């Protein structure tokens, strides 16, 4: 292969790759599939049916732009029975409730937000999702993971 042929081949490859980038990349205005702001309960270990009440799979968040407090469905309830996944987009408001039978402290890693959860009392938390990533939500004292907060760009 001559030098010219080789250069042409490399140039062609570059063109293909750059074009591929622009073809494949979703434009910023596109609603991405993850814009669906419902909480999913991901639970690979399949806890007994009794602990998985259907009403725990609920809408977690509302886009801040359409926020109407009175119209909000109940935030998901986090317990030690399973790890509840909460998925939001950056800038949304994260809402969830948590209850600990023994009393503990809810801690959202990364955001470093903590709140006391007295025994048996349901507490609610709400804050703005301004950091991207997947963060653990746990009962700090017992070290039990109760939720995973997924914040997508």
């Amino acid at each position: 292969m001559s030098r010219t042929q080789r250069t042409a081949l490399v140039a062609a490859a570059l063109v293909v790759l750059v074009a591929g980038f622009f073809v494949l990349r979703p434009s910023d205005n596109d609603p991405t599939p993850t814009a669906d702001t419902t909480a999913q309960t991901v639970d690979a270990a399949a806890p007994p049916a009794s602990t998985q009440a259907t009403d725990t799979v609920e809408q977690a968040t509302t886009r801040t732009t359409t926020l109407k407090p009175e119209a909000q469905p109940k935030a998901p309830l986090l317990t030690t029975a399973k790890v509840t996944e909460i998925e939001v987009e950056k800038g949304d408001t994260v809402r969830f409730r948590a209850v600990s039978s023994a009393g503990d402290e809810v801690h959202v890693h990364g955001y470093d937000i903590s709140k006391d959860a007295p025994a048996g009392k349901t507490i609610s938390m709400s804050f703005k999702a301004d950091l991207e990533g997947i963060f653990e939500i746990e009962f700090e004292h017992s070290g039990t993971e109760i939720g995973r907060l997924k914040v997508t760009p």
Partner: protein
Amino acid sequence: MNRAALTAAWTASAACASLVAATPAAAHGLVGKQDLPIPRWMFAWSATIVLVISFVGLAALWTKPILVAAHAKRVIGLPALLDPLLGAIGVAWFALLIYAGFAGSQVETANLVPTSVYVMFWVGIPMLSLVFGDVFRPLNPWRAIGRFTGWIVQKAMGDVPDPIAYPTGLGHWPAAIGIFLFACLELVYSDGTDPSHLAALIVAYSVVQFLGMAIFGVRPWCAHGDAFGVYFGLFATLSFLRLSPRAIARRVPLSGTAQVVPIAGTIGLLCVMIGSTSFDGFTSTEVWRTMADWLRERYLDIGLSLRPAVELTFLTGLVLCTAAISALYLLGARGIRTVDRTRTTMELARKFAPSLIPIALAYVLAHYFGMFAYQSQAMAFLVSDPLGRGSDLFGTASATIDYGWISATAIWYVQITVLVLGHAAGLALAHDRALELYGSGRKATQSQYWMLGVMITFTCLALWLLSNVD
């Protein structure tokens, strides 16, 4: 969290039906933040890059071997005192870690040890090695202590008996076993981030190192048996700088790696390196969760209690991943026999082993860059309060980790960039080796068909793992 609380947490988790929360993803408990999965379009695009680079590379790369014979050029000399001085710093840090592990708080995030071991040492040193060359060798506390002891003994006794010659058959196997055990500590063992356990294991590892050095001599042992020295040393060959005790030299990029002479156990070591990193990525996918649930049930069925069942599940996964990576690589080497009947598969595998070094480093960087980007900031408060007892030595004890300094998108680009570069480097090394063995004709190109497929599989596997984080 103290041991009692840990035990309590274990019992509590065991009581729950949800066992996933109790899986020992040890080193990640340290961070509390995981990278987001690479979006599907980015996965498709980067896999395309990998394919295009591979085939263009096959057709258009150089036609004479250039890496094997490249010479390093001396840039600057170093004072004789620098090596022992860096050794002393390494030993001081090493002693501090052992002390902090035993005497400090047992909360994994408040003690200096877990972050130093899993973040600064395990991920930070490979990054430094890539840029500056083998920085670990002068800092290596085991080597420094071994050399110092040797020097004292020689002064005191005058004539020291020669150490036993290092057996050729042993090669890099002690290092391969060491890295495998470290992977078990990180990915299998439930108390892998417990500071006092880590300190005890550092002591145990040191005992093995000192025995090895006493039997075979400091230099031969460090070059073959010290798992971390060998591991970091292989990555350091990728740097365009070559550090030696008395000088810094620069070299043609990748020539250092092309000149690595694989010995017994080198392939094993590289496959453990790639296998353990891929297993770490694999554990956060849905596929693994399903497999792990099934495996754990089987282990519980045969009468194991929960903790050993979970650990055995992870051990099985780690062994299977390493075996799969080894089998894949040997398949690539076997493919070269289509043009070269004179060499066995193992001989060919050994000849081409340096191509795995950049791929292994790319795996490490792609998987741990996010963790490093955040958790390394913890060093700011950990050095001021190494024991987690409320001291403030440098006034930085109240520093926190800024989780916002780099966006998820930036991390994705870093991940795919290192994987693509690692792939290209592996390809270039294999190409150069093929030219060296088979000349520039058709045979060299044909010898690479299978190996190319294997490398594409490695890189696409890494991309798949990053895009399937769940």
